[in-house]
């Protein structure tokens, strides 16, 4: 199996770099040595979502230049993967050469848990965690990529971890990028319900596959329920791998 290339979203690079480190540890556990292109920046999603499609083409073309030749690109963020897979072809539809490159790259870009379970065919990482785990179905992981079973399989395979149901697990946490700052009142109601459902689930930790949700739910928990933890699936697995070894 060829080594995948690591696509680290800007939010992870700047604010949650430990998620990137966790990705490395998890992939190395599978005897992979991920490639890191130091030229990578941001996929351009904020500009695309704000409607600046012409300007966003620059970000897209840079991304395609950096990752275009990789066999597989792995990313710990469902929404950034969706941007590359779904939005780039739209964005570049009037530039045939770039469109071809975007369409050619799209099927080689994977969300982390999807890559581990579907491509590597691995569920059990030989990790252990004593406690109950709730899983938040990030919108663009679940509905954008159709990824839901993969992270749950990884969690269930962790020895000692009990995956518990959470009401409204598939309901949006209210992040939506600029939505959270443009409509903070609506966003707050959604994230507060997500936190309440998490607390009611009795889980010890909430796991999700998208750093956007992590910033939103995590930011809310930090302010209002600082004792409750939310973890990226990579961080959860990396920590559990560590514990599995000791």
């Amino acid at each position, binding site marked *: 199996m060829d080594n995948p290339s690591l696509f680290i979203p800007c939010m992870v690079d700047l604010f*949650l770099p430990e998620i990137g480190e966790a990705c490395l540890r998890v992939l190395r556990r599978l005897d992979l040595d991920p490639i*890191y292109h130091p*030229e990578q920046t941001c996929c351009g999603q904020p500009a695309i979502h704000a409607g600046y499609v012409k*300007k966003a083409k620059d970000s897209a073309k840079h991304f395609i230049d950096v990752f275009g030749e990789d066999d597989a690109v792995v990313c710990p963020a469902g929404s950034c993967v969706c941007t590359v897979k779904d939005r780039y072809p739209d964005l570049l539809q009037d530039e045939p050469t770039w469109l071809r490159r975007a369409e050619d790259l799209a099927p080689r870009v994977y969300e982390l848990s999807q890559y581990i379970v579907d491509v590597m065919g691995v569920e059990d990482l030989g990790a252990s965690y004593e406690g109950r785990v709730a899983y938040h179905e990030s919108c663009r992981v679940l509905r954008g990529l159709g990824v839901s079973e993969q992270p749950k399989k990884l969690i269930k395979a962790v020895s000692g971890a009990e995956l518990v149901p959470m009401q409204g697990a598939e309901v949006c946490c209210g992040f939506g990028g600029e939505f959270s700052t443009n409509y903070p009142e609506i966003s707050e109601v959604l994230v507060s319900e997500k936190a309440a459902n998490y607390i009611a689930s009795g889980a010890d930790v909430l796991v999700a596959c998208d750093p956007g949700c992590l910033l939103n739910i995590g930011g809310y928990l*930090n302010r209002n329920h600082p004792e409750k933890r939310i973890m990226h699936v990579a961080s959860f697995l990396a920590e559990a791998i560590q514990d599995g070894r000791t």
Partner: protein
Amino acid sequence: MKVKSEQFREVAIEELKTRHTRSHLDVIGLFISEMRRASMGTFPDPSAALELGRAIRAESIERLPELLEEFERNATANGAVVHWARDADEANALILRIAQERNVRLVTKGKSMVTEETGLNDVLIENGLEVFETDLGEFIIQLLGRPPFHIQGPALNIPVQEICDLFMEKGIMNEPTLDPVELGHAARVFLRNKFHHVDMAITGVNFAVAQTGTIINVENEGNIRLTKSSPRTQVSVMTLEKVVPTMQDAMHMLRLLCRNCTGQKIASYVSMDSGPNKGREVDGPRELFIVILDNGRSSFYRDPEVREILRCIRCGVCMLECPVYGKIGGYPYGWAYSGPMGQVLNPLMLGLERTQDLYRACTFCGGCKTACPAGIDHPQKFLYYRAKDVEGDPRYKGKRRPWTESSFMGIFTWVTKRRWRWNLGIKAARPFLNRHVEQGFIRGMKGPVEGWFKSRDFPAMAEKTFHDRMQERGSRESGEPSRS
């Protein structure tokens, strides 16, 4: 109908505080979602049924001009009179003229979104006609003078006490009661009396079948059937996208409509009119007019990027799935169509400038698109409208964004083109952001991101980014020459 879409934000904040809005939305959300899931589950293959519906609607819209002509031919052959209306004023004037030529004084109406769109009631009432909505929810909001709260439950947020007070005030009943069944009975008795004397009926149309010239109405209260069978004259108003090719197609769309709308396999009443009463029949109107309204639709039909929104069958499942609608209800959207259904349609009908919030108040969760039995990609339309707004597209009345935002986006995308620029940007931003940090988190900031901090913290910008850490580690390179 008065357009209030500019007040989205204010009304939304008001509605978030309204206990009745919130509790009703929560209940309907859970209840109908469950019924919908169960009823969709009765298809042998639910996802195939969904795909078939999407294919039917895609075909209907691609063949729209041809199908409308076929429908007109067959409806006319059945004895109906088909009129075409370019816009709301033309439709209203036409219907008023039909009423006036027949000395109509009393009109009953079946629930119809399109006549909300055209503001027909106001026109008829201004011209001295008595107009009664006969759907219980529509009847209540007509008496209250409010817009519909929800497509299926126009008045579901109105507390029982308020309905009781309203019915007493308007003389619908003589004794106050808080028993919903009694209240429903009072409305029924009042309206039954109207049906006895009604001169003309006005209804909407759920589907128009090109193959047979039939119009189909779906309802649960029986009021549309009563409305259609009592008077001499019936006027059915439809927008031009209601047509489907064949009766078989209509039957499949009916299955999807009822399941996604109310979680039923079939609604309590489905009526089909293929022309007026032909003389030998016991009921039905002597004359049937079908008004086909354009109101701007044919102009955006020409844009292949947005044509798809005409596939909508108004089932309302997008509202049920929308987390934003689920908290704020229908009022903030400020027009006949609310939720994602209105968010894709209203900006085209009203212009991008006055509907800013409709295509921005979305988290891109994709719930609407995933459930839509007509195959509409709502989030993608919002991106398209945002792009048109940024461009200041004159066709859709784009406004252009503030220069601060467009300059920021210009710099941002320029920075994403080279890593060294990105690194410089980080260096510049870090001290600015991190001066707000307490115990590892930014607790508050002024400016465009201020809203975030009303209820949330944000992590400090890392002293060492992931990139820095990899560089220090002397990690594997891709082997390609540096592009900086």
